[in-house]
């Protein structure tokens, strides 16, 4: 029950017509306080946005940039992107891209993800783009938040990691098998050599034809055993973990030695197909000379196979990025189809007929180069040719 009014209430000395003055004052104070709080929050949010390492841009429905974060300025030269269109800034195009994720996000009012590859400053970069609609109070998209993450490095690492993993498992298997075969092979080889030594000691009256057969068969056994041993040796590099001694190696000299070694085996006109482009000031690297020789040999043999004595092979050395030394073997051969590129370095991958290719050449190279803390990779165009690059760290001066 409300208290009943009194005479004092009617006179109402303490009560006056309520004005807006106090209310306005309070409101102003309140607004000032919230204003301060808002600008503090805004700075906080801006700090968060700026510390995001992905490139961020807010787009209007007409694809005009309304704001960007600091990461944007780290990557793009454009000092004032606001008001310009995203395609203008990101792709130097005067029309929206056909697969524009921002437009799709606007249309569907849903987060849209896409990975694209396009060149920035002449280098192909791999971007993961997320376009998320910023919704108004009615839930309709009024802006698009574009997040661009440069995943070029991640993708490269990922690819390398997958390859390394595959190589490791298959490599361990192969090395195991090689070990097991090595002993019987040594025995076969030993006994075959024993047989060969004993042939002259056979009685004079032994059937001549039979004797010749024996000699021929033993020779074949020895030759094939040699081939087997070569393969087994190659496979064993998979498991030979740092067992070899590293020394100072000049890649230019190594190339020369390897070619000398080959000369006797190569026909004259084939020898003339090899060209050299060696950097005379090339720094040395640290490594195992015979293993690195093996790498050059394997790459050369592949190049011969690819050119079929009809193309050119160029051996090149140069300095790469200051502290890295590069050796490349370029050919104008058949090239490699794109879908083979990622299998190339796997053990036993070959496109060559049985007896001709085993598929351990490149995987051996891969293992050797990796042990040298280097990289091996290929650039190839089908029908045009291939270039294998071996990049090794230059020798560090003590």
């Amino acid at each position, binding site marked *: 029950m409300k*208290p*009943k*009014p*009194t*005479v004092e*209430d*009617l*006179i109402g000395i303490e009560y*006056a017509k309520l004005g807006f003055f106090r209310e306005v004052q309070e409101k102003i104070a309140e607004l000032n306080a919230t204003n301060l709080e808002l600008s503090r929050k805004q700075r906080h949010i801006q700090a968060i946005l700026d510390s995001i390492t992905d490139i961020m841009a807010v787009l209007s429905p007409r694809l005009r940039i309304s704001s960007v974060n600091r990461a944007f300025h780290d990557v793009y030269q454009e000092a004032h992107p606001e008001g310009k269109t995203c395609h203008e800034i990101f792709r130097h195009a005067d029309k929206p891209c056909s697969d524009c994720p921002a437009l799709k996000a606007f249309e569907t009012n849903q987060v849209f993800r896409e990975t694209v590859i396009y060149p920035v400053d002449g280098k192909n970069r791999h971007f993961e783009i997320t376009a998320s609609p910023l919704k108004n109070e009615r839930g309709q998209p009024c802006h698009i938040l574009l997040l661009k993450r440069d995943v070029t490095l991640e993708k490269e690492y990922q690819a390398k990691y997958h390859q390394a993993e595959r190589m490791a498992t298959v490599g361990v298997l192969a090395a195991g098998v090689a070990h097991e075969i090595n002993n019987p092979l040594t025995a076969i080889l030993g006994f075959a050599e024993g047989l060969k030594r004993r042939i002259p000691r056979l009685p004079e009256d032994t059937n001549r034809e039979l004797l010749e057969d024996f000699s021929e068969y033993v020779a074949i056994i020895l030759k094939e055993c040699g081939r087997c041993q070569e393969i087994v040796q190659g496979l064993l590099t998979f498991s030979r973990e740092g067992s070899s001694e590293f020394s100072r190696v000049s890649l230019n000299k190594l190339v020369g030695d390897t070619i000398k070694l080959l000369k006797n085996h190569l026909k004259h006109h084939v020898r003339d197909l090899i060209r050299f482009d060696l950097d005379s000031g090339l720094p040395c690297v640290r490594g195992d000379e015979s293993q690195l020789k093996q790498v050059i040999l394997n790459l050369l043999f592949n190049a011969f196979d690819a050119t079929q004595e009809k193309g050119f092979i160029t051996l090149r050395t140069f300095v790469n990025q200051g502290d890295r030394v590069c050796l490349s073997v370029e050919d104008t051969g058949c090239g490699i189809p794109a879908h083979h590129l990622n299998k190339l370095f796997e053990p036993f991958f070959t496109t060559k007929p049985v007896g001709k290719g085993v598929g351990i050449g490149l995987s051996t190279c891969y293992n050797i180069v990796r042990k040298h803390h280097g990289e091996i990779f290929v650039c190839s165009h089908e029908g045009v040719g291939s270039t294998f690059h071996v990049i090794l760290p230059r020798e560090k001066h003590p």
Partner: protein
Amino acid sequence: MEVRKFSIPEIIFGRGSLQYAGLCARRLGAEKVLLVSDRGLEEAGWVDRVVEILDHEKLHWIYYGDIISNPRDFQIDKGVGFYHRHKADVIIGLGGGSPMDAAKGIALVASNGGRIQDYEGANRIHQPLPPMIFIPSTAGSGSDISQFAIITDVERRVKMSIISRTLVPNISIIDPLLLQTKSRKLIVAAAIDALCHAIESYVSTIASPFTEIQSLKAMQLIMKNLKRATETRDLNSLEQLSAASTAAGMAFSNAGLGVEHAIAHSLGGIFDTLHGLVHPVLLPPVMRFNLPACAQKMAQVGEILLGKKRRGAQATALGGIEKLEEFCDTMGVQTRLRDIVNEHAKLPDMCRMAVNDACLLTNPRQATWEDLLQICEEAW
């Protein structure tokens, strides 16, 4: 004398003062005015006239005219919804007591929230109200001056009194030209309401020199001009009635009223009786009831009503009351309670309700509900 207070709105008075309505609204910060009025004013063309003035001032406006006499709580709620929906600001009340009280109610609930019932009683309003401009058209209710708003609670059948200085409008524009379209009956009813305001506030326990002079002036002007105004509708007389009503409003807003208005409110709540009809019936018996408590003042009232003194205060006072009854008779208004209320049986309940009315607080003589019933019986 104890401490008293006297407060009134800005008053713009005179023929044609209506034309300043738009200017006043603009000065109070109006962009979109809520105009509150009723059917009668629409028909008389005054609503159109005000709209014209607002248009001329290039103000936006919305109109709420769903008001009947003795404004109801639900009409307030509707008005508040209308006000908010259209984002109106300044409120203009145009008409008699009902549209103006309704405008007060709308202003109150629109700014303070809740229901109108929450503010029943005195000084319960804590937030400022939207600016209000009132344009009275009856020269009677005094609502354009006063700190009172009377709204009917339909469910409880009670006329709620809401009292607060904050209900005093910012500006009251009093234009006697508006009275010209009034019926004779309405002029009489309003004038006697104003006379009643003047008499009750004069004998009020909290009357002060500032209210007494207004009360006396109002009585004189009404007695002098009412007859002529009803007979000739001469603009001078109407103007004097306007001034009287305004003066009476100043008096009762600050000095309060008495038993008569307590009963009048109760009658309005229960029987929906028109406020203006009640006074010729109740005022004389109430004056007789109060006489013993304020003979001197009643004598002064009597002198004005009579136009002369009789020997002794008592005689002058009684003479005045008789003159008043006679005066009402000649005006051709109903003078018996039975003429305006049909259920005698409900009178006790009505009186029990009336003793709770805030108007009773300032009555010169203590009154129980039985006293009120006695008054009603006398008036029956």
